[in-house]
Structure formats: structure tokens, C-alpha cells
């Protein structure tokens, strides 16, 4: 439709003089909004009291039922980034950001309706399905654009955007609590109007990103930048078509590297509060544990920028080697910190671990760019995010069930996590081997000169 032509990739090509430093804030506009997902838990308790207002009544939703909202959203993040990755790549960042804004705001509005008529299935559909689709499309929408604008520092560029996803919760959490406080009355807890206001704010914020984002003109390069005449061992100058990437062993090796790195981090991230209190009874209070969780979130965000930027200097594969080796050492040390009662050692170990968890997310787009070129990196990244969905199941299951098993078999609570820590360290050994096996992509998968246009046109017609 003509009125939506401003969303086309052709209308987002930057004019001479456009500063590439406008693109990271455009990407952050989207990532800071969808990063709200990490703060969704602030709604869990209020949503268990929608009928009872001051306390839960028999008809109210249970925490276990509410937990599915986030799980469905993360599942659809993986599905939508894999399914829509090519469409995002070929349609351009503005169309993708606009679609993500519509879905994200729409998800909040539908959920507000679900809350107001007390129908949990509508909330699953709204925040879970539609919001999850927005998460997937929004997450990958600026990745390849940033890589094209920053060929000299691709890790730093994608690190900035993905840092926003980790930082979104810092804004969403206090904002949501403040809004619920304003809308709360004697007759309702204020969740539905908070969803409506958040949906409206996020839509505007994301649209600002969609408006200011630009793609570089063909052949554009940063001033003074000279692309390497000869490809380095693990940095390709050639593009690989999105579905051909799936046929390469490198894709699956990196898939496992990401999955194992995320599994190792996501399990402890969700259980950090309980784990710290149980491992150091009397030393870490619930209030201190909340502070620890906040500190972990900061390192999760900071690690995204730090490690991705570092990878520009030491290389992507070496960065993941650091994650695997350092992570292995730290996971093995955690039980020792518990046995000697070293709170400082425990906190430092987990802060570094969680920074590498964030770093794993932010370094992987540049890793894929090195392997498969820039043409379809966003779409390939979308396919790779299914590893995140898988890790989202593995990680918490490993931590929770092994702890439960140990406790029921008489292991003291302070030592109930030791087995899990050693298993996490073992997973990182497997990740190390996968990373070690990553070699340059075989030349037969490289796209030919005119293949780019033919496949692109086919994609546009599809």
C-alpha cells in the first residue's frame, strides 16, 4: 500500500551527511522497550490479586499459571525471529521496527483487555503470542543495519543495541510499579490501565527508532575505513544465503555454543536470590539478595557491551573461548566459596559469569557476520535464537530439579547447588569443544555475484 511506502528499505537509504551514530539510539529505542520482558515479573503478584484486590481469592490466577506468560513470549521470540528473519532482512529495519511496535503495543492492549475481563487465555495471546512475535522481530531488526554501518567495529555496534535489551528492565520495572501505584484503587489493582499506558509509551518510543533509522547507501564505508583486501582465517568477505547457512556445520556448532553459554547463565539468573540466601544462610538477607539480583542485571547489561566490544580486538572465537574457560573455572569455584563462607568470592564469581551470559548474546551477531557475511546476517541470527528458547527450558530445569532432588535426598540446602555448578562447568567444556571445531565456511556455500539479486528478488515476491 502506498501509504506504507515510507517503511520500505528504499525509503530508508541514508543521504550523504547522515551520521552513523544516529543508528545505535534508533536500535536502542526498540531494544529498551522489548527489554521490558525481563521485568514482567513485577506484574505477577498484582495479577494474583485481580479479584481479591488485597489478597488472592480462590478464583484468582496462580503464580504457576502466570509464569506461562513469560515462557510463551520467549518461545515465540525464538519462533518469530526464525520465521520472519528473512522478511526482516529483505524488508529493511524500518518496516521491521514498525511491525514490532504494532505487535508490542497490541500485545499490551490485548492483555489489558484480558486482565479487565479476567481471562488468562487472552493475556497468553496478547503478551505471550503477539508480544513474543514483537520480541523476535524487534530483537533482530537493527542487527544487520548496525553491522553495515559499523564494519570497523561490528561487535561494539551490536553490543550497544543488545545491551539495551538487558537494560530495558531497569526502566520498565520502576515505571510499572509507579504506574500501578497511580492507577490502584479500592476496586482494582491497576494492572489493566498500566498495560494500556505502557503499550502507548512503548509504541511512541519504538516509532521514534523506526523514523530515525537509516540503512547505508550501497558502497558506503566509514571515512578512512579500508576493508581488508584478503579475508582473514575466520572473517569472510563472502555472503552466505540464509537457508544455506543451515547446511553448514558452523551454524550448528555456534548454535550449541550459544545454547550452552545461555543455559549456564539463565538457570542461575532466575534462581540467584534463593540460591544466595540458601548458600549463605544468615549472611545474605532477602533485602541483600534483591540487591545481588540488581547487581547481576547491571553486569548482564554491561557485559553485553564490554564483551562484544572486546571481541572486535581479540576475535569472536577467542571471546567465546574466554567465556568457556573462565566460566568453567568460576563454576567450579562457587561450591568452594560456599564451603568457606566467602560472600565476596560468591558474588564476584556470579557477576563475571552473568556478564559472560550477556556477552554471549551480544557477540554472536558479529560471529555470524564473520562466518556468513553481512547480507543475511540478521536472518541467520534469527534462526540461531532458537538456541535461546531451548536454553530457556534447559537452564532453569537443571538448577531447579537438581536442587530439589538433592534436598529431598538429605543434602543440606547450602550444598544443594554444588552438583548443578559442576554440571554447568561440564556444559561449558562441551561448549569449548564446539567452539574449537568452528572453522571457516566452505567456499561452495558462498553466494555468487548475481545470486544476491536473484534470491533477493525472489524473496521480495514471496
Amino acid at each position, binding site marked *: 500500500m502506498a501509504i506504507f511506502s515510507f517503511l520500505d528499505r528504499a525509503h530508508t537509504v541514508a*543521504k*550523504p*551527511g*547522515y*551520521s552513523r*551514530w*544516529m543508528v545505535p*539510539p*534508533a536500535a*536502542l*529505542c526498540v531494544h*529498551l522497550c522489548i527489554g521490558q520482558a525481563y521485568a514482567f515479573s513485577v506484574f505477577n503478584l498484582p495479577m494474583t490479586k485481580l479479584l481479591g484486590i488485597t489478597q488472592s481469592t480462590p478464583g484468582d490466577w496462580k503464580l504457576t499459571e502466570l509464569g506461562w506468560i513469560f515462557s510463551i513470549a520467549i518461545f515465540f521470540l525464538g519462533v518469530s525471529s526464525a520465521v520472519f528473519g528473512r522478511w526482516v532482512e529483505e524488508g529493511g529495519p524500518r518496516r521491521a521496527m514498525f511491525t514490532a511496535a504494532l505487535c508490542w503495543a497490541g500485545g499490551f492492549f490485548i492483555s489489558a483487555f484480558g486482565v479487565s475481563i479476567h481471562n488468562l487465555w487472552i493475556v497468553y495471546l496478547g503478551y505471550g503470542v503477539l508480544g513474543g512475535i514483537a520480541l523476535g522481530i524487534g530483537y533482530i531488526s537493527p542487527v544487520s543495519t548496525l553491522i553495515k554501518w559499523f564494519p570497523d567495529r561490528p561487535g561494539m555496534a551490536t553490543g550497544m543495541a543488545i545491551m*539495551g535489551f538487558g*537494560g530495558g*528492565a*531497569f*526502566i520498565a*520495572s*520502576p515505571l510499572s510499579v509507579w504506574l500501578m501505584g497511580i492507577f490502584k484503587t479500592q476496586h482494582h489493582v491497576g494492572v489493566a490501565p498500566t498495560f494500556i499506558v505502557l503499550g502507548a509509551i512503548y509504541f511512541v518510543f519504538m516509532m*521514534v527508532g523506526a523514523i*530515525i533509522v537509516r540503512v547505508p547507501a550501497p558502497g558506503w564505508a566509514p571515512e578512512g575505513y579500508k576493508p581488508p583486501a584478503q579475508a582473514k582465517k575466520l572473517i569472510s568477505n563472502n555472503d552466505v544465503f540464509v537457508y544455506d547457512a543451515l547446511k553448514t556445520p558452523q551454524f550448528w556448532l555456534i548454535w550449541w555454543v550459544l545454547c550452552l553459554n545461555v543455559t549456564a547463565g539463565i538457570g542461575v539468573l532466575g534462581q540467584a536470590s534463593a540460591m544466595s540466601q540458601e548458600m549463605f544462610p544468615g549472611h*545474605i538477607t532477602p*533485602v*541483600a*539478595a*534483591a*540487591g*545481588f539480583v*540488581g*547487581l547481576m*542485571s*547491571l553486569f548482564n*547489561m554491561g557485559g553485553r557491551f564490554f564483551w562484544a566490544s572486546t571481541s572486535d580486538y581479540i576475535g569472536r572465537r577467542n571471546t567465546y573461548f574466554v567465556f568457556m574457560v573462565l566460566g568453567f573455572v568460576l563454576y567450579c569455584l562457587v561450591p568452594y566459596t560456599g564451603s568457606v563462607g566467602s560472600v565476596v568470592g560468591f*558474588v564476584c564469581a556470579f557477576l563475571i559469569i552473568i556478564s559472560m551470559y550477556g556477552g554471549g548474546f551480544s557477540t554472536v551477531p558479529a560471529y555470524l557476520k564473520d562466518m556468513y557475511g553481512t547480507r543475511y546476517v540478521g536472518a541467520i541470527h534469527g534462526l540461531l535464537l532458537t538456541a535461546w528458547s531451548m536454553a530457556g527450558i534447559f537452564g532453569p530445569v537443571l538448577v531447579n530439579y537438581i536442587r530439589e532432588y538433592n534436598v529431598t535426598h538429605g543434602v543440606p540446602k547450602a550444598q544443594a547447588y554444588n552438583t548443578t555448578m559442576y554440571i554447568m562447568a561440564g556444559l561449558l567444556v562441551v561448549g569449548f569443544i564446539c567452539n574449537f571445531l568452528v572453522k571457516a565456511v566452505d567456499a561452495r556455500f558462498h553466494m555468487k555475484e548475481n545470486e544476491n539479486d536473484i534470491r533477493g528478488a525472489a524473496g521480495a515476491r514471496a
Partner: protein
Amino acid sequence: MTTAKQGTTSFQLLLAWGFVGIPLVLGVLQTLINAMKLFQ
């Protein structure tokens, strides 16, 4: 001052970075204040 002739101005850059940076910095500060409870 402009970054290039008829291109992005420094004011536009400041506006764009402030738009995302101010809420993020406020959120980070709030989290840091809460995190300090770990050391009390």
C-alpha cells in the same frame, strides 16, 4: 556545528542519545541504589 554539510547536526545526535540515554541512566542509578543494600 554539523557532522557534515546538510547532514546530521550535533543537536540531533544529542537529542537522539538523550532520548534513550536519560531513562536508561535513571534506571541504572535506581538499580545501583537498590544493589547497595547487598553491602549494608
